[in-house]
């Protein structure tokens, strides 16, 4: 088994993706890997609805500082597409990840339903190492 060199993490600014990013930074620090924050730009990205690129960069920067991770070992990969399609491609160029980390739910998707779950889609279709990080607080019953 080869050492982890690049860990990609799906990051859209949601609480669950933040938990996933923290976990990825922690793992990367322990194994000496780089981290790539991956963000998918959807259809509405063209209208700058929701979290804009600037807000996302600020959130990401804050996370890096909180995690005391070397910012020089962090890259961003922003690509057009739905989250599932973009994240499925991170093993290839230009990201070249060895491992993908995602949260349980991204922005917009609802807890407790199968539809709209990127993590479930990835779990069904991924042919690469994938870690799904559970949310910190259980959803309300």
């Amino acid at each position, binding site marked *: 088994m080869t050492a982890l060199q690049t860990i990609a993490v799906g990051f859209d600014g949601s609480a669950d993706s933040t938990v996933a990013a923290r976990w990825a930074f922690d793992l990367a620090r322990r194994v000496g890997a780089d981290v790539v924050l991956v963000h998918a730009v959807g259809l509405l990205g063209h209208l700058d609805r929701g979290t804009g690129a600037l807000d996302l960069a600020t959130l990401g920067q804050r996370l890096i500082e909180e995690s005391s991770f070397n910012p020089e070992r962090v890259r961003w990969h922003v690509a057009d597409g739905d989250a599932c399609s973009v994240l499925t491609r991170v093993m290839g160029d230009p990201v070249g990840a060895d491992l993908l980390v995602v949260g349980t739910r991204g922005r917009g998707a609802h807890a407790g339903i199968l*539809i709209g779950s990127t993590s479930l889609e990835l779990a069904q279709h991924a042919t690469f190492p994938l870690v799904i990080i559970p949310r910190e607080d259980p959803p309300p019953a």
Partner: protein
Amino acid sequence: MLVVSAPVDDSGHEDPGHPERHDRVGAVMAGIDELGLGEDVKVAPLHRATRAELTRVHQAGYLDDLGAFCYGGGGDIDEDTYATYDSWSIATLAAGAGLAVVEELRRHDDGVGFVVTRPPGHHALRDRAMGFCLLNNIAVTAASLVAEGERVLIVDWDVHHGNGTQSIFWDDPNVLYVSTHQWPLFPGSGVPQEIGGPNALGTTVNLPVPPGATGDVLRGAIDLVAAPVIDQFAPTWVLVSAGFDAHRDDPMADLALTSGDFAQLAGLVGTFVPRKGRLAMFLEGGYDLDALRTSVAATLAQVLDAPYQSESATHGGPGEDAVARAQRERLVALRQQEASGPNAKDSP
């Protein structure tokens, strides 16, 4: 004669502030009204897609989940796509509308169909909603035609690649999928090397063009790369994923087309139609209401030979080199795939 789909009250599928909105249908109908076609407009009967018709292109489990999600109150499916309590009912009517229009065209053996429904469909995958789309409307109609032994050409001139339609018919040799779209742009698929599955090599034709591309670039791409493939395919039906978001005023993308360009595109596509009554267009994108209205009017005026003063067609934008590259990359991919033999590969 124009055959339009039956009007549906789709106001229940609405998310305040979302660009894919009820007013789009009003803009399309205003464009049709401007042509003054009078009794030359026939309205197809209302038809809700049956489960059998839907499962030709969608997984049964996905249909169950989507229906349950809607009747549970709906919500955001992803960052782009929403559903409401009424969305299942509205989407199944949208998915069935093309079937009714096709039947009406057959009955008259004449005319052009226009399916004026929402939500749009060409991003919807077999097992997933995305890109504003819940059910793949054009695919439901195409699959039904294929089941009856027809050979279907789908031309998709929406500014976004129709990844759902491509994926559904990836390995079906009876459907030829041709897409012009801006690249790079959502959904991130649609490169020229995507040419179809092992049983249908060459039946997917992707023609990506850069931001700023003008109408002549898109027409040239279809003429140079797609037309020979279409001639060889010899379709018995032509369906169009008619998105109008490649218009220069549309906020969702950066191409530079005008209503006059859509008229010329429609004229070009019209040359692929094998006989009268075998052309049906499906509304996909188009989010600037004035651009949508005038582009629909110009498109239909062209194929119905009706008078309409559209904007001038555009020329001289970037993309000629991208088209030449697409042709080369497609040919290389074809040679490589043919040389490697049957090799099951999923649609990207």
